[in-house]
């Protein structure tokens, strides 16, 4: 059954374009999407996800499963980095462990989108408020990561580099992509509440266009991910194993929490994907600034070179299978 889900997932345009991009690198085609075009897509996707999420949050209100789900999401993004940290410390130093842990505690918006597309193509309903969970899971993981550095490695850093709370909060909340996502969420919410004609006029841009831009961006992500593979090989088998096993483990915790929250299968899948995915936007940027001792090739090649493709291609349908098995469809 899972193989049929995997096949159904693979044969959608976003995943196919992702393959096309990756294949271009393996075949040494000179296909290239020059900078800053990927940034355009990335900004657009964050803006559009946020805006749509805010709209739907306004429609759904804060009743029912909304608050519990968001709280659970926050707890997951505090808990997962701690688990990851202790596993990573087996082989890596404090700086690298904390940076990678933060990335896995945080989320990947594009993985989330791809999961949404998957649910659409399977005709499984889900709720817009899940985007709020998405937006809110970025910061806590960064905070945990930086705290781990602050606590575990105070002596290894020169005096002027002792981390300040102000800096930690700044990096976790005001990171460009976190800020745009949260801001657009708020704007979507306000627009839904006060300016219904604005909602309609945004729809062709944030709504109709979305799927196509997603495909275009995944084409680029395929190229980027494939170019990270060589440095993943250098990173060694411990990190390679981590980049596949950790998402599966996090997904398992996620599905149990989703079950406890009584989420329907659509929302449950999205919740699981949030737990299983790892950040390659907000977290790496924050870590580069605040923990330059960590090797960026480690947290980039694991999240982007392996976990991201794994989730996009195999993870989502596997997690769906997990959800179907563990959560009764009547929820």
């Amino acid at each position, binding site marked *: 059954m899972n193989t049929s889900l995997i096949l159904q997932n693979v044969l959608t345009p976003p995943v196919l374009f992702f393959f096309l991009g990756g294949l271009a690198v393996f075949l040494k085609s000179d296909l290239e999407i020059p900078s800053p075009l*990927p*940034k355009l897509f990335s900004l657009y996707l964050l803006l559009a996800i946020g805006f749509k999420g805010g709209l739907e949050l306004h429609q759904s209100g804060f009743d029912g499963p909304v608050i519990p789900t968001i709280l659970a999401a926050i707890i997951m993004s505090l808990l997962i980095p701690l688990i990851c940290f202790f596993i990573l410390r087996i082989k890596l130093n404090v700086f690298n462990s904390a940076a990678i842990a933060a990335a896995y505690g945080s989320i990947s918006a594009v993985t989330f989108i791809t999961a949404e597309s998957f649910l659409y193509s399977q005709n499984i309903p889900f709720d817009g408020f899940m985007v709020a969970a998405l937006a809110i899971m970025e910061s806590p993981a960064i905070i945990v990561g930086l705290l781990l550095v602050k606590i575990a490695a105070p002596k290894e850093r020169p005096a002027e580099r002792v981390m300040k709370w102000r800096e930690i909060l700044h990096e976790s909340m005001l990171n460009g992509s976190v800020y745009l996502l949260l801001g657009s969420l708020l704007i979507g919410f306000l627009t839904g509440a006060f300016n219904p004609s604005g909602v309609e006029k945004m729809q062709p841009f944030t709504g109709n266009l979305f799927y196509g831009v997603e495909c275009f961006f995944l084409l680029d992500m395929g190229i980027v991910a494939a170019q990270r593979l060589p440095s993943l090989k250098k990173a060694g088998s411990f990190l390679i194993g981590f980049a596949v096993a950790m998402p599966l483990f996090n997904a398992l915790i996620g599905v149990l929490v989703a079950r406890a929250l009584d989420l329907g299968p659509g929302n449950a899948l999205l919740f699981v994907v949030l737990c299983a995915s790892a950040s390659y936007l907000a977290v*790496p*940027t924050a870590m580069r*600034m605040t923990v330059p001792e960590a090797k960026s*090739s480690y947290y980039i090649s694991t999240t982007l070179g392996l976990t991201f493709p794994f989730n996009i291609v195999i993870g989502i349908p596997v997690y769906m299978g997990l959800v179907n098995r563990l959560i009764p469809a009547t929820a």
Partner: protein
Amino acid sequence: MKRLDLIFSERELDEMLKCLEKAEVPGYTVMKHVTGRGPERVVSEDMEFTGLGANAHVIVFCQEEILERIKNSVQPILNYYGGVAYISEANPL
């Protein structure tokens, strides 16, 4: 006069420019979106969208005495975050 070439990650650009201003350079020129490889890192164009950014290449034409001041404030940044700084001779046209 001297020419100073600084190459480092774009993310430290603001901090670096503040150092230059403090050292009272007469001016500077910035080229962003620069890539490269140093002893520690490979910086490639395809990662720019993540916000990790690329390198910046800063050129300063100035008198030798200003270089001393720059050195003291710039060196720690380069040591901590990586990057290179080289001086050569240059004279106004």
